[in-house]
């Protein structure tokens, strides 16, 4: 029945309708109905702001439990580079990957390498691109959904390269199935995710197509077990561990990482949905045509600020930044072979398999004339409202309330400021009614007449 899959579920048992989620939702996708939060599916872009805002833990991210691993004959962990930022400075990717294997995965794959490859593909594409600018990174699925819903006209400016996690998983399955004589579906590829939105990008990719990943496990779920698993991992030399890090890819964990490692001159790095909206508004007005590339992440500071991470986002941001600086200083460039990449690039290896389509919100009415009329009604209703956005009606703002009334989802009397007015009207009606009914009872003079 649901047209859109979402990575968020509201538990009505836990929800006590305190409106925190409704107020933070950047797309006004939450309403309070009968004292409980409900989601308007078509408006939700899965940013996860509501998860963090809910004081009762009633909004639950749908990630996979660890137990899913047993369904497959061979399992591979593909951690987001944001996982590397969760532990102290001494703990480098090699140790984390070894720890994941101790946890029960048959293998753990360093996604930063694929990120580095995709960075290369982005650079190539930027060089060839002749169409409208700036191009926008598709690393963050929430940003892609924001464009589909609110900026459908910018859809052709989303860079058409595939995401590293999908490319890696496609490749791993192909190689492993050959290596072990298994069917591709017997191999389970699990993304270790810093945010719930990656879950939907697996269950329902933004482009039309099918994901190569089999699930997503929350970094916060795996953090504790991983920390203890790493205790028994033998310590490698720091220098050697550094040499295994791909400088081009590690930056994908934080905002600005791609632009910095590619040394892009005319680029912008933006994080936080409200900031992104400002930048996208400017693109629509044609203001940023001299910018080549925009890296945008819905979470503050990029993936390190995801709602399913553990470490303070400024500390984890700093860890990645210092790592890049160290690699730059030590001149370590453990990067993929450029000639090989160029060949793959020509074979379209890095490009999205499906096409991105806009997902505009349903208009007020299918009929243009009626839609215009309803918009006018919305305006008229809005003018009568107090405009203080108290939320008591169950809609986040007076303007959205006016829209809900026009759509028939709310009653004007749901506004508490309408109530005294209604009482006044009702009591007046009541008085009038009383006066009207009075003549039915015979008056004194009437009674006198009758006596005669």
């Amino acid at each position, binding site marked *: 029945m649901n047209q859109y899959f979402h990575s968020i579920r509201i538990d009505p048992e836990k929800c006590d309708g305190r409106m925190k989620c409704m107020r933070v939702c950047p797309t006004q996708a939450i309403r309070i109905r009968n004292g409980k939060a409900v989601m308007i599916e078509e408006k939700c872009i899965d940013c996860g702001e509501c998860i963090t805002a809910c004081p009762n833990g009633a909004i639950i991210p749908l990630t996979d439990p660890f137990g899913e691993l047993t369904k497959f004959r061979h399992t591979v962990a593909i951690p987001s580079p944001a996982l590397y930022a969760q532990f102290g400075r001494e703990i480098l990717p090699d140790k984390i990957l070894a720890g994941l294997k101790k946890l029960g995965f048959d293998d753990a794959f360093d996604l930063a390498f694929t990120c580095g490859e995709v960075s290369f593909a982005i650079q190539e594409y930027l060089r060839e691109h002749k169409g409208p600018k700036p191009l926008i990174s598709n690393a963050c699925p929430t940003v892609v959904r924001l464009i589909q819903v*609110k900026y459908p006209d910018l859809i052709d400016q989303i860079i058409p390269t595939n995401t590293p996690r999908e490319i890696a998983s496609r490749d791993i399955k192909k190689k492993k199935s050959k290596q072990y004589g298994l069917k591709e579906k017997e191999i389970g590829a699990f993304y270790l995710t810093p945010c719930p939105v990656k879950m939907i990008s697996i269950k329902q990719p933004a482009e039309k197509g099918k994901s190569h990943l089999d699930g997503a496990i929350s970094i916060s779920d795996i953090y504790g077990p991983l920390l203890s698993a790493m205790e028994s991992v033998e310590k490698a030399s720091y220098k050697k561990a550094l040499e295994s890090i791909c400088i081009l890819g590690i930056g994908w964990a934080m905002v600005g990482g791609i632009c910095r490692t590619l040394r892009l001159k005319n680029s912008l790095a933006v994080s936080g949905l409200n900031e992104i909206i400002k930048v996208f508004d*400017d693109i*629509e*007005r044609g203001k940023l045509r001299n910018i080549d590339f925009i890296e945008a992440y819905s979470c503050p500071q990029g993936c390190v600020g995801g709602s399913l991470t553990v470490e303070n986002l400024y500390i984890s941001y700093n860890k990645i930044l210092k790592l890049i600086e160290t690699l730059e200083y030590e001149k370590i460039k453990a990067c993929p072979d450029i000639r090989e990449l160029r060949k793959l690039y020509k074979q379209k290896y890095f490009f999205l398999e499906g096409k991105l389509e806009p997902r505009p919100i349903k*208009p*007020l009415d299918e009929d*243009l004339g009626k839609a*215009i009329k309803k918009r*006018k009604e919305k*305006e008229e209703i809005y003018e009568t409202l107090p405009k203080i956005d108290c939320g008591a009606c169950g809609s986040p703002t007076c303007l959205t309330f006016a829209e809900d009334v026009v759509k028939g989802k709310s009653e004007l009397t749901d506004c508490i400021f309408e109530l005294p007015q209604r009482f006044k009207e009702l009591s007046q009606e009541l008085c009038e009614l009383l006066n009207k009914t009075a003549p039915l009872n015979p008056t004194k003079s009437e009674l006198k007449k009758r006596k005669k």
Partner: protein
Amino acid sequence: MSTENGLSKRFEITGGDFGKAGEVSTKIKEILQEIGIDSTIIRRTAIATYEAEMNVVMYAKKAELTLHLTPTKISIRVYDDGPGIENIEVAMQEGFSTATDEMREMGFGAGLGLPNIKKNADRFKISSTPGKGTALDITIYLNQAGKK
């Protein structure tokens, strides 16, 4: 001009208020999105409105922008109390600008404003009285037949 089956909305633009510049075009964009107007038309309208708004912010004290929407077309009228334009023909040329150095430093005044409005509109009328102000009439048709 009948307004019965249309939606009319008036906005005020304050000259010199660079912080709020662009808000009107964003509001208009949101209205058009709610109504379900084609996204290419929305973008053309947003660009034309934004350029008109910027002209007011840069040169006038205040202006009134009226959006009028019917099932066939979007009309936008902008009346400002600015210095007016001496020679409209010259002002319509790409690259012509009277912007100050400060404005240029902020990335404005490339002399693309008026030509850009014309490019995005199906019909564009401009009239101006030096010392009094400028009036813009922008029309964008909604049906294919009316399109350029």
